[in-house]
């Protein structure tokens, strides 16, 4: 037995070879890596930061939530349906192919083509055609006035058309090429995706030599990876593990991200049809208690609207519904439900941070005003399906994403009557959405979005809870790392001290 023990121990020690790490490498632990190196095929939030190291879009969003040029230098709307983009010169793809208007045409058409099966197609479905004017000018025609075109373009990665023509789709997936700060090194399904610095990047070579995204689905394992030093950065740390990591000298930070968590209503059924009932439920829930006790303070209470101050279209005049059970009871009585009512509540486990705890807290608080909510946990696939099919709820937990474009149009256009699922129906609101989507002037569009937010504050389609936080851990040896509200991160200036 002793011999076996010694053998086992020596085997263990011999096998654990620490990495020599000659180059400056940053290893990031994330819940999942892209399903494929093809950026037009995966729209999950976790795929965004990995793709963004290698590929770039025409436009992006800066730290203030403003749309800025990336591969496009400038743009203007020539008419309600025609846009012109001036492209950046002297940009080349990693294979040496120059970036031109043809690449823009190719990439947008590829996302729109049903053969690509791109989940991003819906964001730019209004695009009718893309025409190069010269090598560095491109015009985009939309089927009707479509003001949020730029927001749609923040998710369309630009790919090299010549490379595709020469090598084909398969070759591209095994050796993808973009214009980004890092070049593709390797991708092993469900394991890691690695990149090396692009020495000819148009904004200058990144400081790091190598970046590795490791796919680690289990929260505790990601936390352990930081504790052992195997990871330089771990994303999405559960709030309750923060104290432990901090005690070990790991820097734990948090960023409020472009995602508003709510209890959504199917406002087309009794008694949620009634505005007063929906208002009552907003008064009945203690948002501050949820933020403080369940999320341990990570996040920010939504100001009676689904986007935070970092979203385009945020309305600074709006305030959260105060926690006021008395007022809730009074409103219910006025609506004809003095003794409350019974309603089904669809929940999830592990879909959002602390979702089950939040569901239970909300149910407890609703019970205080006489509303009995029966919780039913749905499996992820069924959850989305019943959401899109309009059979979910009438109450369900939900997070409205407005990242990476950081634009309120994304969630707000969903509340129009013709939106999929049809969870909210009000012709007055529909008219606002139509006005917003046709408002080619950004200031005007912002004003209409704020008007829409005010409308929904008064006639709420959900219980507004919190803007969710992304908590992440960074080793002290890493400098210059910041996770953005957009879910993205600029790694070009990040250093790892030896």
């Amino acid at each position: 037995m002793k011999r076996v023990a010694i053998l086992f121990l020596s085997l263990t020690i011999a096998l654990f070879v620490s990495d020599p790490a000659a180059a400056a490498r940053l290893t990031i632990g994330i819940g999942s890596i892209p399903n494929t190196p093809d950026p037009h095929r995966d729209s999950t939030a976790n795929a965004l930061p990995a793709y963004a190291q290698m590929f770039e879009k025409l436009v992006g969003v800066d730290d203030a939530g403003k749309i800025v040029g990336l591969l496009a230098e400038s743009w203007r709307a020539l008419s309600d349906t025609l846009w012109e983009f001036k492209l950046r010169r002297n940009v080349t793809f990693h294979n040496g192919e120059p970036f031109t208007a043809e690449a823009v045409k190719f990439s947008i058409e590829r996302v729109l083509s049903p053969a690509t099966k791109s989940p991003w197609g819906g964001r730019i479905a209004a695009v009718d055609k893309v025409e190069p004017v010269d090598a560095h000018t491109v015009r985009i025609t939309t089927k009707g006035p479509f003001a949020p075109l730029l927001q749609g373009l923040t998710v369309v990665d630009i790919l090299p058309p010549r490379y595709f023509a020469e090598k084909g789709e398969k070759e591209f997936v095994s050796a993808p090429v973009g214009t980004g700060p890092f070049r593709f090194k390797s991708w092993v399904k469900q394991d890691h995706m690695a990149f090396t610095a692009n020495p000819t990047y148009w904004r200058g070579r990144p400081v790091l030599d190598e970046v590795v995204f490791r796919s680690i689905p289990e929260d505790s394992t990601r936390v352990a990876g930081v504790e052992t030093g195997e990871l330089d950065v771990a994303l999405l740390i559960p709030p309750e593990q923060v104290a432990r990591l901090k005690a070990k000298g790991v820097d734990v930070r948090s960023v409020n991200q472009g995602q508003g968590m709510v209890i959504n209503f199917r406002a087309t059924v009794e008694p949620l049809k009634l505005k007063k009932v929906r208002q009552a439920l907003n008064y009945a829930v203690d948002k501050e208690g949820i933020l403080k006790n369940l999320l341990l303070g990570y996040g920010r209470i939504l100001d009676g609207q689904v986007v935070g101050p970092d979203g385009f279209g945020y309305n600074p005049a709006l305030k959260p519904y105060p926690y006021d059970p008395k007022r809730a009871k009074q409103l219910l009585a006025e609506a004809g439900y003095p003794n409350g009512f019974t309603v089904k509540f669809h929940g999830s486990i592990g879909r959002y941070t602390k979702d089950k705890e939040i569901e239970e807290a909300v149910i407890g608080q609703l019970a205080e005003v006489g509303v009995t909510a029966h919780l039913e946990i749905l499996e992820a696939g069924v959850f989305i399906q019943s959401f899109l099919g309009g059979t979910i709820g009438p109450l369900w937990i939900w997070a409205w994403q407005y990242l990476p474009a950081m634009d309120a149009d994304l969630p707000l256009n969903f509340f129009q009557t013709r939106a999929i699922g049809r969870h909210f129906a009000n012709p007055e609101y529909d008219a606002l959405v139509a006005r917003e989507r046709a408002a080619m002037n950004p200031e005007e569009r912002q004003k209409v979005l704020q008007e829409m937010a005010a409308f929904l504050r008064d006639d709420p389609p959900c219980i507004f809870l919190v803007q969710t936080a992304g908590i992440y851990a960074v080793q002290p040896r890493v400098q210059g790392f910041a996770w953005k509200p957009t879910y993205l991160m600029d790694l070009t200036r990040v250093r790892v001290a030896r």
Partner: protein
Amino acid sequence: MLQYCRARLVDLVIAVLGVSTLVFFLLRLSGDPVALLVTETTTREEMERLREALGLTAPLWEQYVRFLGHALQGDFGDSLRHARPAASLVWETLPATLELTAAALLIATLLAVPLGMLAAIRRGTAIETSCSVITLVGQSMPFFWLGILLILVFAVQLHALPSFGRGTLGHLILPALTLSAATMAKTARLVRSGMLEVLSQEYIRTARAKGLPERLVVLRHALRNIAIPVVTILGLDFGLLLGGAVVTETIFAWPGTGRLMIQAIQGRDFPVVQAAVFVLAIVFVVINALLDLIYVWLDPRIRFRRGP
């Protein structure tokens, strides 16, 4: 032998056909893959377009016939999410899962046999009690909990082993140990009770009476006689281990078929689930066939018996 192989082949066809038919229809009952492919703000037309592109608008029977025809040629279609053939995704991840389950099986055997024997031989002593405690703990501890515990002890506290990923043999130890726990415990208990029974047999008394050293009595006369039930349990547990790998692979970020399947099921990636079930069913049936061959090698009585 030829007859045996033929019978096994028929088993294989029936099992694989049955399982994949069941999976095909259950999957389609479970939900719509298109719903999971699109973003929340998609339009109805967009979903219809996608459904068309994925070939999901055809009647169910037509989809099934097409699936069977292609599956027989090893073609399960392209994954809905990975832009790659589903079969190749499964083949790529299978070695990792087989490596993990084989290692777990090996660890389970290496630990269970001595543990069970010790408990039987040292009956009524503190050794037996501690063996029972170990097996009880092993059998009742969930994979999930044990995995995280092992990471905390061996990776975080002792810095002896990596906490996640696949690569060196060091990466294999913690997940394999986690996965082996339940099988180890079950097998150890089986070895113990089998051993106790065999040791009370008359031929053991004879062996002892003729003056054989106790070591030989136990190893040669007793152990060989409990080999068959032990091998049976280990063989059957291989299937359980493939299932347990799903959880273990998730905890340790092990890039295997289990994780591929979980992701595919959650995303309603029909082709990948079908391919994975197909391949795993084949693996399971083949393992069972090998098990039968091991019986023959272990027990000469089976070898000399003719007929069924």
